[in-house]
Protein backbone atom coordinates (compact mmCIF):
# COMPACT_ATOMS: atom_id res chain seq x y z
CA UNK A 1 0.00 0.00 0.00
CA UNK A 2 2.34 2.61 -1.25
CA UNK A 3 1.59 6.16 -2.35
CA UNK A 4 -2.09 5.86 -2.98
CA UNK A 5 -3.70 9.21 -3.53
CA UNK A 6 -6.09 8.16 -0.81
CA UNK A 7 -4.73 6.13 2.09
CA UNK A 8 -6.37 2.97 3.44
CA UNK A 9 -7.23 4.82 6.66
CA UNK A 10 -8.94 7.55 4.68
CA UNK A 11 -10.84 4.93 2.71
CA UNK A 12 -12.02 3.16 5.86
CA UNK A 13 -13.06 6.48 7.32
CA UNK A 14 -15.17 7.36 4.28
CA UNK A 15 -16.29 3.92 3.15
CA UNK A 16 -19.73 4.19 4.78
CA UNK A 17 -20.38 7.55 3.11
CA UNK A 18 -19.09 6.07 -0.16
CA UNK A 19 -21.60 3.20 0.05
CA UNK A 20 -24.38 5.73 0.73
CA UNK A 21 -23.29 7.88 -2.21
CA UNK A 22 -22.46 10.78 0.08
CA UNK A 23 -18.93 11.61 -1.04
CA UNK A 24 -18.12 14.25 -3.59
CA UNK A 25 -17.04 13.35 -7.12
CA UNK A 26 -13.36 14.00 -6.51
CA UNK A 27 -13.16 11.78 -3.42
CA UNK A 28 -15.23 9.10 -5.13
CA UNK A 29 -12.82 9.02 -8.09
CA UNK A 30 -9.87 8.84 -5.73
CA UNK A 31 -11.45 5.99 -3.74
CA UNK A 32 -12.40 4.13 -6.92
CA UNK A 33 -8.77 4.25 -7.94
CA UNK A 34 -7.74 2.98 -4.51
CA UNK A 35 -10.17 0.03 -4.65
CA UNK A 36 -8.72 -1.02 -8.01
CA UNK A 37 -5.28 -1.37 -6.54
CA UNK A 38 -5.84 -2.33 -2.87
CA UNK A 39 -7.26 -5.82 -2.32
CA UNK A 40 -7.83 -5.32 1.38
CA UNK A 41 -9.89 -2.15 0.95
CA UNK A 42 -11.77 -3.76 -1.96
CA UNK A 43 -12.74 -6.59 0.37
CA UNK A 44 -13.81 -4.12 3.04
CA UNK A 45 -16.00 -2.35 0.48
CA UNK A 46 -17.54 -5.62 -0.73
CA UNK A 47 -18.15 -6.77 2.83
CA UNK A 48 -19.71 -3.45 3.85
CA UNK A 49 -22.02 -3.50 0.84
CA UNK A 50 -22.96 -7.07 1.68
CA UNK A 51 -23.84 -6.08 5.24
CA UNK A 52 -26.01 -3.19 4.05
CA UNK A 53 -27.76 -5.42 1.51
CA UNK A 54 -28.39 -8.32 3.87
CA UNK A 55 -29.59 -6.38 6.88
CA UNK A 56 -31.63 -4.04 4.70
CA UNK A 57 -33.71 -6.97 3.48
CA UNK A 58 -37.22 -7.18 4.92
CA UNK A 59 -36.69 -10.84 5.70
CA UNK A 60 -34.36 -9.73 8.48
CA UNK A 61 -37.30 -8.05 10.19
CA UNK A 62 -38.77 -11.01 11.97
CA UNK A 63 -41.53 -10.77 14.49
CA UNK A 64 -42.40 -13.37 17.14
CA UNK A 65 -45.17 -15.84 16.39
CA UNK A 66 -48.57 -14.34 17.15
CA UNK A 67 -47.21 -10.79 17.28
CA UNK A 68 -49.66 -9.44 14.70
CA UNK A 69 -52.65 -11.09 16.31
CA UNK A 70 -51.72 -9.78 19.74
CA UNK A 71 -51.18 -6.26 18.45
CA UNK A 72 -54.49 -6.31 16.62
CA UNK A 73 -56.25 -7.59 19.74
CA UNK A 74 -54.62 -4.96 21.94
CA UNK A 75 -55.70 -2.18 19.61
CA UNK A 76 -59.20 -3.62 19.37
CA UNK A 77 -59.36 -4.01 23.15
CA UNK A 78 -58.35 -0.40 23.60
CA UNK A 79 -61.02 0.68 21.15
CA UNK A 80 -63.57 -1.36 23.11
CA UNK A 81 -62.38 0.06 26.43
CA UNK A 82 -62.62 3.55 25.02
CA UNK A 83 -66.02 2.70 23.61
CA UNK A 84 -67.04 1.26 26.96
CA UNK A 85 -65.71 4.31 28.71
CA UNK A 86 -67.73 6.41 26.37
CA UNK A 87 -70.78 4.18 26.84
CA UNK A 88 -70.36 4.40 30.59
CA UNK A 89 -69.89 8.10 30.36
CA UNK A 90 -72.74 8.56 27.99
CA UNK A 91 -74.95 6.32 30.12
CA UNK A 92 -74.84 8.73 32.99
CA UNK A 93 -73.75 11.81 31.12
CA UNK A 94 -77.15 12.26 29.51
CA UNK A 95 -79.18 12.28 32.76
CA UNK A 96 -76.50 14.37 34.46
CA UNK A 97 -76.55 16.84 31.59
CA UNK A 98 -80.33 16.91 31.72
CA UNK A 99 -80.22 17.50 35.46
CA UNK A 100 -77.65 20.26 34.98
CA UNK A 101 -79.89 21.86 32.40
CA UNK A 102 -82.87 21.68 34.74
CA UNK A 103 -80.90 23.06 37.67
CA UNK A 104 -79.33 25.69 35.46
CA UNK A 105 -82.70 26.59 34.04
CA UNK A 106 -84.15 26.90 37.51
CA UNK A 107 -81.26 29.08 38.56
CA UNK A 108 -81.70 31.32 35.57
CA UNK A 109 -85.40 31.54 36.22
CA UNK A 110 -84.68 32.20 39.84
CA UNK A 111 -82.14 34.83 38.93
CA UNK A 112 -84.56 36.52 36.61
CA UNK A 113 -87.39 36.40 39.07
CA UNK A 114 -85.12 37.48 41.92
CA UNK A 115 -83.28 40.26 40.29
CA UNK A 116 -81.39 42.70 42.28
CA UNK A 117 -83.71 44.66 44.53
CA UNK A 118 -85.22 47.53 42.64
CA UNK A 119 -83.49 50.74 43.31
CA UNK A 120 -86.64 52.82 43.33
CA UNK A 121 -89.46 52.42 45.76
CA UNK A 122 -91.67 53.45 42.90
CA UNK A 123 -90.89 50.47 40.81
CA UNK A 124 -92.97 50.66 37.73
CA UNK A 125 -93.67 47.67 35.53
CA UNK A 126 -91.53 48.09 32.46
CA UNK A 127 -92.66 45.20 30.33
CA UNK A 128 -93.45 47.37 27.36
CA UNK A 129 -89.95 48.76 27.03
CA UNK A 130 -87.99 47.08 24.24
CA UNK A 131 -85.29 45.03 26.04
CA UNK A 132 -82.61 46.02 23.55
CA UNK A 133 -83.32 49.69 23.80
CA UNK A 134 -80.21 51.70 24.61
CA UNK A 135 -80.58 53.52 27.88
CA UNK A 136 -78.31 55.27 30.35
CA UNK A 137 -77.91 55.04 34.08
CA UNK A 138 -75.76 57.01 36.46
CA UNK A 139 -74.22 56.13 39.77
CA UNK A 140 -76.37 56.75 42.80
CA UNK A 141 -79.54 56.99 40.70
CA UNK A 142 -82.46 54.58 40.63
CA UNK A 143 -83.90 55.15 37.20
CA UNK A 144 -82.72 54.51 33.73
CA UNK A 145 -83.26 57.04 31.00
CA UNK A 146 -83.31 57.61 27.32
CA UNK A 147 -79.94 59.18 26.45
CA UNK A 148 -80.22 62.92 26.73
CA UNK A 149 -83.06 62.88 29.24
CA UNK A 150 -83.04 66.06 31.29
CA UNK A 151 -83.66 64.21 34.51
CA UNK A 152 -80.43 62.27 34.71
CA UNK A 153 -78.50 62.56 37.96
CA UNK A 154 -74.76 63.06 37.77
CA UNK A 155 -74.24 63.00 34.05
CA UNK A 156 -70.51 62.59 34.59
CA UNK A 157 -71.04 59.01 35.79
CA UNK A 158 -73.40 58.03 32.98
CA UNK A 159 -73.00 54.61 31.44
CA UNK A 160 -74.84 53.08 28.57
CA UNK A 161 -76.55 49.70 28.58
CA UNK A 162 -79.70 48.03 27.34
CA UNK A 163 -83.04 48.41 29.03
CA UNK A 164 -83.00 44.73 29.89
CA UNK A 165 -79.62 45.02 31.56
CA UNK A 166 -80.70 48.13 33.41
CA UNK A 167 -83.76 46.35 34.75
CA UNK A 168 -81.67 43.32 35.73
CA UNK A 169 -79.50 45.68 37.73
CA UNK A 170 -82.57 46.98 39.52
CA UNK A 171 -83.02 50.25 37.68
CA UNK A 172 -86.52 51.33 36.84
CA UNK A 173 -87.64 53.37 33.84
CA UNK A 174 -87.73 57.09 34.10
CA UNK A 175 -91.43 58.04 34.15
CA UNK A 176 -90.71 61.09 32.07
CA UNK A 177 -88.49 60.15 29.17
CA UNK A 178 -89.89 56.62 29.01
CA UNK A 179 -93.46 57.56 29.70
CA UNK A 180 -94.69 56.37 26.35
CA UNK A 181 -93.62 52.82 27.18
CA UNK A 182 -95.24 52.78 30.55
CA UNK A 183 -98.78 53.63 29.71
CA UNK A 184 -99.94 50.10 29.28
CA UNK A 185 -97.94 48.91 32.26
CA UNK A 186 -99.28 51.44 34.67
CA UNK A 187 -102.33 50.80 36.67
CA UNK A 188 -104.04 52.35 39.59
CA UNK A 189 -103.26 55.49 41.40
CA UNK A 190 -99.50 55.17 41.19
CA UNK A 191 -99.60 54.84 37.48
CA UNK A 192 -101.69 57.85 37.13
CA UNK A 193 -99.29 59.84 39.28
CA UNK A 194 -96.44 58.70 37.15
CA UNK A 195 -98.31 59.41 33.99
CA UNK A 196 -98.84 62.89 35.20
CA UNK A 197 -95.15 63.20 36.09
CA UNK A 198 -95.85 63.62 39.75
CA UNK A 199 -93.46 61.03 41.16
CA UNK A 200 -89.82 61.70 41.91
CA UNK A 201 -87.78 58.61 41.49
CA UNK A 202 -85.23 59.27 44.16
CA UNK A 203 -87.25 60.86 46.85
CA UNK A 204 -90.42 58.92 46.39
CA UNK A 205 -92.48 62.05 46.82
CA UNK A 206 -94.79 63.94 44.57
CA UNK A 207 -92.72 66.03 42.35
CA UNK A 208 -93.05 69.42 41.02
CA UNK A 209 -93.00 69.25 37.25
CA UNK A 210 -89.76 71.13 37.31
CA UNK A 211 -87.81 69.08 39.80
CA UNK A 212 -84.64 68.92 37.86
CA UNK A 213 -82.51 65.93 37.33
CA UNK A 214 -82.90 62.65 39.20
Amino acid at each position, binding site marked *: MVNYATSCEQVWHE*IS*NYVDGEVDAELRASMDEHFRTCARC*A*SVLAGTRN*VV*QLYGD*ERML*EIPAGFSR*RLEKRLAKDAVVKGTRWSTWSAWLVPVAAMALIVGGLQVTNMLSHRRPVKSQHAIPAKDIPPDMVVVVSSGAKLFHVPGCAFIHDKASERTLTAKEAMQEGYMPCPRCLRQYLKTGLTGEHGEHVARGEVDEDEGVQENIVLGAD
Partner: protein
Amino acid sequence: MASKMSEPEMVLNNPGHAGGMREQDLILSVQRGQHELFYELVRPYERRVYAAALAILRNEHDAEDAVQEAMLKALANIRQFRAEARFSTWLIQITVNEALMRRRRERTVVMEGIDDRREGEESEYAPREFADWREIPSEALERKEVRQRLAEALGTLDRKYREVFVLRDMEHLNIQETAEALGITAASVKTRLLRARLMLRDLLAAGWEQGWFSRLPFEKGTKPW
Protein backbone atom coordinates in the same frame (compact mmCIF):
# COMPACT_ATOMS: atom_id res chain seq x y z
CA MET B 1 -35.90 -7.49 -3.27
CA ALA B 2 -38.66 -7.16 -0.73
CA SER B 3 -36.92 -4.53 1.28
CA LYS B 4 -36.73 -2.13 -1.61
CA MET B 5 -40.47 -1.83 -1.94
CA SER B 6 -41.55 1.78 -1.42
CA GLU B 7 -44.22 2.59 1.13
CA PRO B 8 -47.09 3.47 -1.21
CA GLU B 9 -46.43 0.20 -3.04
CA MET B 10 -46.52 -1.65 0.23
CA VAL B 11 -49.95 -0.25 0.95
CA LEU B 12 -51.37 -0.65 -2.50
CA ASN B 13 -50.02 -4.15 -2.95
CA ASN B 14 -51.19 -5.34 0.42
CA PRO B 15 -54.25 -7.37 -0.51
CA GLY B 16 -55.77 -7.19 2.94
CA HIS B 17 -55.32 -3.48 3.24
CA ALA B 18 -58.79 -2.25 4.12
CA GLY B 19 -60.28 -2.98 0.75
CA GLY B 20 -57.38 -1.37 -1.09
CA MET B 21 -57.65 2.04 0.58
CA ARG B 22 -54.62 4.18 0.08
CA GLU B 23 -52.56 5.08 3.11
CA GLN B 24 -53.56 8.73 3.02
CA ASP B 25 -57.23 7.77 2.89
CA LEU B 26 -56.77 5.39 5.79
CA ILE B 27 -55.01 8.05 7.83
CA LEU B 28 -57.83 10.51 7.18
CA SER B 29 -60.44 7.92 8.11
CA VAL B 30 -58.69 7.12 11.38
CA GLN B 31 -58.21 10.81 12.12
CA ARG B 32 -61.94 11.26 11.63
CA GLY B 33 -62.67 8.60 14.23
CA GLN B 34 -62.65 5.24 12.45
CA HIS B 35 -60.20 3.79 14.95
CA GLU B 36 -61.03 0.24 13.92
CA LEU B 37 -59.00 0.89 10.73
CA PHE B 38 -55.85 1.75 12.64
CA TYR B 39 -54.44 -1.75 12.68
CA GLU B 40 -54.79 -1.90 8.88
CA LEU B 41 -52.83 1.32 8.75
CA VAL B 42 -49.92 0.11 10.90
CA ARG B 43 -49.82 -3.50 9.73
CA PRO B 44 -47.35 -2.89 6.87
CA TYR B 45 -44.91 -1.42 9.40
CA GLU B 46 -45.27 -3.77 12.34
CA ARG B 47 -42.03 -5.60 11.53
CA ARG B 48 -40.11 -2.38 11.32
CA VAL B 49 -41.40 -0.92 14.57
CA TYR B 50 -40.73 -4.22 16.33
CA ALA B 51 -37.15 -4.29 15.04
CA ALA B 52 -36.63 -0.73 16.26
CA ALA B 53 -37.93 -1.57 19.73
CA LEU B 54 -35.90 -4.79 19.89
CA ALA B 55 -32.71 -2.96 18.92
CA ILE B 56 -33.15 -0.72 21.93
CA LEU B 57 -34.59 -3.09 24.52
CA ARG B 58 -32.93 -6.37 23.44
CA ASN B 59 -35.75 -8.40 24.88
CA GLU B 60 -38.56 -9.78 22.75
CA HIS B 61 -41.23 -9.48 25.40
CA ASP B 62 -40.28 -5.91 26.32
CA ALA B 63 -40.03 -4.95 22.66
CA GLU B 64 -43.48 -6.32 21.89
CA ASP B 65 -44.95 -4.56 24.88
CA ALA B 66 -43.27 -1.31 23.86
CA VAL B 67 -44.64 -1.63 20.33
CA GLN B 68 -48.17 -2.15 21.62
CA GLU B 69 -47.90 0.89 23.88
CA ALA B 70 -46.35 2.93 21.09
CA MET B 71 -49.14 2.02 18.68
CA LEU B 72 -51.75 3.02 21.26
CA LYS B 73 -49.96 6.35 21.68
CA ALA B 74 -49.81 6.77 17.92
CA LEU B 75 -53.55 6.17 17.71
CA ALA B 76 -54.23 8.60 20.55
CA ASN B 77 -52.18 11.25 18.73
CA ILE B 78 -53.16 10.42 15.17
CA ARG B 79 -54.65 13.89 14.68
CA GLN B 80 -51.21 15.37 15.21
CA PHE B 81 -49.78 13.47 12.24
CA ARG B 82 -49.18 15.78 9.32
CA ALA B 83 -49.21 14.56 5.74
CA GLU B 84 -45.84 16.07 4.92
CA ALA B 85 -44.13 13.46 7.12
CA ARG B 86 -43.74 9.79 6.24
CA PHE B 87 -46.20 7.75 8.28
CA SER B 88 -43.67 4.94 8.76
CA THR B 89 -41.08 7.38 10.10
CA TRP B 90 -43.64 8.87 12.46
CA LEU B 91 -44.52 5.40 13.80
CA ILE B 92 -40.88 4.41 14.19
CA GLN B 93 -40.08 7.62 16.04
CA ILE B 94 -42.94 7.07 18.47
CA THR B 95 -41.76 3.49 19.00
CA VAL B 96 -38.15 4.57 19.54
CA ASN B 97 -39.31 7.17 22.06
CA GLU B 98 -41.34 4.56 23.92
CA ALA B 99 -38.46 2.07 23.94
CA LEU B 100 -35.92 4.68 25.05
CA MET B 101 -38.24 5.80 27.82
CA ARG B 102 -38.61 2.22 29.04
CA ARG B 103 -34.91 1.65 28.95
CA ARG B 104 -34.25 4.85 30.90
CA ARG B 105 -36.73 3.70 33.52
CA GLU B 106 -35.03 0.36 33.89
CA ARG B 107 -31.40 1.30 33.67
CA THR B 108 -29.38 2.61 36.58
CA VAL B 109 -27.45 5.84 36.47
CA VAL B 110 -24.24 3.83 36.79
CA MET B 111 -24.96 1.93 33.59
CA GLU B 112 -25.64 5.15 31.67
CA GLY B 113 -22.36 6.54 32.96
CA ILE B 114 -20.39 3.56 31.68
CA ASP B 115 -21.92 3.92 28.22
CA ASP B 116 -21.19 7.62 28.14
CA ARG B 117 -17.52 7.00 28.83
CA ARG B 118 -17.32 4.81 25.75
CA GLU B 119 -18.06 7.70 23.38
CA GLY B 120 -14.36 8.18 22.58
CA GLU B 121 -14.16 4.74 20.96
CA GLU B 122 -16.18 5.82 17.95
CA SER B 123 -13.45 7.53 16.00
CA GLU B 124 -10.93 4.84 15.06
CA TYR B 125 -11.66 1.37 13.76
CA ALA B 126 -9.46 -0.66 11.46
CA PRO B 127 -11.33 -3.42 9.63
CA ARG B 128 -9.77 -6.84 9.94
CA GLU B 129 -8.03 -8.57 7.08
CA PHE B 130 -9.32 -12.03 6.17
CA ALA B 131 -7.62 -14.66 4.08
CA ASP B 132 -10.89 -16.20 2.95
CA TRP B 133 -14.35 -14.78 2.54
CA ARG B 134 -17.64 -15.25 0.76
CA GLU B 135 -20.23 -12.70 -0.14
CA ILE B 136 -23.50 -13.91 1.34
CA PRO B 137 -26.22 -13.59 -1.31
CA SER B 138 -29.68 -12.33 -0.39
CA GLU B 139 -31.18 -15.72 -1.24
CA ALA B 140 -29.40 -17.10 1.82
CA LEU B 141 -31.87 -15.15 3.95
CA GLU B 142 -34.50 -17.74 3.11
CA ARG B 143 -32.74 -19.92 5.66
CA LYS B 144 -33.70 -19.27 9.22
CA GLU B 145 -30.26 -20.33 10.38
CA VAL B 146 -28.64 -17.55 8.35
CA ARG B 147 -31.07 -14.96 9.65
CA GLN B 148 -30.33 -16.11 13.19
CA ARG B 149 -26.59 -15.81 12.64
CA LEU B 150 -27.00 -12.29 11.31
CA ALA B 151 -29.26 -11.35 14.22
CA GLU B 152 -26.72 -12.78 16.68
CA ALA B 153 -23.94 -10.75 15.10
CA LEU B 154 -26.06 -7.61 15.35
CA GLY B 155 -26.83 -8.43 18.98
CA THR B 156 -23.14 -8.37 19.88
CA LEU B 157 -22.75 -4.72 18.89
CA ASP B 158 -22.68 -2.11 21.59
CA ARG B 159 -26.12 -0.53 21.86
CA LYS B 160 -25.14 2.87 20.47
CA TYR B 161 -23.91 1.26 17.26
CA ARG B 162 -26.74 -1.24 17.09
CA GLU B 163 -29.46 1.42 17.45
CA VAL B 164 -28.05 3.62 14.72
CA PHE B 165 -27.49 0.66 12.40
CA VAL B 166 -31.01 -0.68 12.86
CA LEU B 167 -32.69 2.69 12.30
CA ARG B 168 -30.51 3.59 9.34
CA ASP B 169 -29.91 0.29 7.52
CA MET B 170 -32.89 -1.81 8.58
CA GLU B 171 -35.58 0.84 9.09
CA HIS B 172 -34.19 2.96 6.25
CA LEU B 173 -34.50 6.25 8.10
CA ASN B 174 -32.21 8.91 6.70
CA ILE B 175 -29.32 10.36 8.69
CA GLN B 176 -31.33 13.30 10.02
CA GLU B 177 -34.34 11.18 10.98
CA THR B 178 -32.07 8.72 12.78
CA ALA B 179 -30.37 11.58 14.62
CA GLU B 180 -33.70 13.05 15.69
CA ALA B 181 -35.13 9.71 16.80
CA LEU B 182 -32.13 8.98 19.01
CA GLY B 183 -31.45 12.54 20.13
CA ILE B 184 -27.91 12.62 18.77
CA THR B 185 -26.16 14.66 16.08
CA ALA B 186 -26.05 13.72 12.40
CA ALA B 187 -22.26 13.54 12.69
CA SER B 188 -22.59 10.96 15.50
CA VAL B 189 -24.99 8.96 13.36
CA LYS B 190 -22.46 8.81 10.54
CA THR B 191 -19.60 7.88 12.82
CA ARG B 192 -21.56 5.15 14.60
CA LEU B 193 -22.97 3.84 11.35
CA LEU B 194 -19.50 3.47 9.86
CA ARG B 195 -18.31 1.63 12.94
CA ALA B 196 -21.39 -0.63 13.03
CA ARG B 197 -21.06 -1.58 9.36
CA LEU B 198 -17.35 -2.34 9.63
CA MET B 199 -17.81 -4.39 12.81
CA LEU B 200 -20.63 -6.40 11.25
CA ARG B 201 -18.51 -6.98 8.16
CA ASP B 202 -15.75 -8.32 10.40
CA LEU B 203 -18.17 -10.45 12.43
CA LEU B 204 -19.72 -12.06 9.37
CA ALA B 205 -16.34 -12.70 7.79
CA ALA B 206 -15.13 -14.29 11.00
CA GLY B 207 -18.37 -16.29 11.13
CA TRP B 208 -17.64 -17.56 7.67
CA GLU B 209 -14.27 -18.76 8.82
CA GLN B 210 -15.93 -20.46 11.79
CA GLY B 211 -18.38 -22.27 9.54
CA TRP B 212 -21.51 -20.25 10.33
CA PHE B 213 -22.54 -20.33 6.72
CA SER B 214 -20.81 -23.58 5.74
CA ARG B 215 -23.97 -25.15 4.36
CA LEU B 216 -24.56 -22.33 1.93
CA PRO B 217 -24.45 -23.68 -1.63
CA PHE B 218 -22.14 -21.12 -3.22
CA GLU B 219 -19.06 -21.37 -5.24
CA LYS B 220 -15.95 -20.50 -3.30
CA GLY B 221 -14.82 -16.94 -4.00
CA THR B 222 -11.37 -15.66 -4.46
CA LYS B 223 -11.43 -12.34 -2.61
CA PRO B 224 -10.74 -12.10 1.08
CA TRP B 225 -13.80 -10.98 3.08
